[in-house]
């Protein structure tokens, strides 16, 4: 069975805060993924340059990865 969290870490997050965070991050990713599907096929469909869809999708991946690093940065282990 799990024991109490480490004393040097932040206090356990209230469940409501986690639900809010979950909803907020879900929306962030819904928007990111929608942009990844829509922008290259609309705004950038006429841009035949490396700074078009190639750069856009690469930046999309970098931003998504950064968001995942932030989310998982809040995880903590129990002693």
């Amino acid at each position, binding site marked *: 069975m799990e024991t109490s969290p480490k004393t040097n870490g932040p206090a356990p997050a209230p469940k409501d805060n*986690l639900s809010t*965070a979950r909803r907020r991050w879900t929306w962030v990713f819904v928007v990111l*993924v929608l942009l990844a599907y829509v922008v290259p096929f609309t705004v950038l*469909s*006429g841009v035949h*340059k490396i700074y078009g*869809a190639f750069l856009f999708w690469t930046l999309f991946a970098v931003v998504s990865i950064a968001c995942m690093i932030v989310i998982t940065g809040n995880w*903590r282990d129990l002693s």
Partner: protein
Amino acid sequence: MSATLVYAAMFIYIIIATVFAFMSKRGMGRGMTEYFLGNRAMGGFVSALTYSATTYSAFMMIGLAGLTYTGGVGALGYELLYLCGLVLAVYFGPRFWLAGKKYDYVSPTELLGHRYDSKGVAILTALACCIFLIPYSAVQLMGIGYLMEGLSGGTITFMTGLIIAVLVAVFWALIAGLRSVAWTDALQALLMIVVAIAVLLVVVYKGLGGFGGLFAALEADAPSLLAVTPKEGYFKFSTFLGLSLPWFFFCISNPQVSQRLYTPRTLKDMRVMLIGFLIFGLVYTLVSVLWGFSARMLIPGLSKADLATPSLLALPIVPMLLALLAMVGITAAAISTIDSIFLTLSSMVARDIYKNLVPNASDDSQLLVSKIFIPIIAIAAFLFARLQLGLIAVLSTAASAGLLVMVPAIFGAFFWKKGTSAGVIASTLIAGGLSFYLQFSGLRPLGWWPGIWAIIVSIILFVGVSLVTQPNTQRAEEFMGYVNNNLKLHNAI
């Protein structure tokens, strides 16, 4: 390439990786959890590398480079959307991990069977995974056979390549289960990425005068490869959606990777695993796509897209030693995927089928059954590969779409108390069958690909059938209550 060189390279690679596999045995205990999950004590760094090697097969350097060669930048978007689908592991990773520790799950389908309180669910979903993933492994094996035959100029025959790959995959899986697979994977992942980057740098700088030269050549000679349009070209929107959507759910729908969510020692290790994989994946994807673009600029007019990589490696600007290492690297990518699939499927046979049919089966007997099934599954894949049937390709292509039908049940397990075993069985059977039928017949209703229909129909069936059948509310509340309470303690969303 001479036969001696090719065999020498393969021999050295196999010997070094085998030494790693035996080293991984040190301190190994007994039992199913130890064998299949590394006793749930895997460190983050090795986990990241084995997750990467398991996920990325020979498809990247052969298939994705070929897709880029033919279809252009859409291949990058499709693969990066898959990579960002890993956000699902950010949500589901801690959930699988917590539930796995609490209820001692070994296979991902065991979680479904227990959560929905149904042996039928466990058996059916495990069988579905076998039906889709054995032909998928067969295609990987065929890939190795063709690759070794092609790159060695026929020195190594298709059949010899096939036999080497099967024996090596089974051997490494049997030595110490996940431990040996993980350690050999880690070595292979490093080999894959280092060789891929080295080849790219040589090709781009020697052949195209650097990345500026590659991009300038693309913009001047093949500008259409740098954009996607909704209704034209290889990556028109329906194709793009049909290809990318099934892959977006890969990290929870494919058991050989979702099983890895049970294995990290701590959540910190899981975080290292996920971030390590994301960085590896981003680099590997960009490198594979740039291989494809480079091949298009240096060797335009190839008859088949899959020839892009072998043709690139055969260019005089690529030193023979590097081409040899690339062959080993691509073989490593394929074997590291196959041995993980063999391992996962054998754990499902023991845990979800054998244990449910023989309720008093001891841990030792389950382990024995799974060890017997590793070579049996390998032989099945080998026989499929040897037959070289068109049906295998269909089943393999259907794998990513077919495994999608379990995604609603996985979501329901953690987020919907009203989900029922009947809902899981109906959605898996009917939507899985539909996915296979659409793939086999080539039908595209409304122009949508099988994966899109698979997910739509499975959601409708899972929700619809669940609403008219009785859920096991007590099990759902107990399971979800435990997971949700502990997520709060771990500050995971």
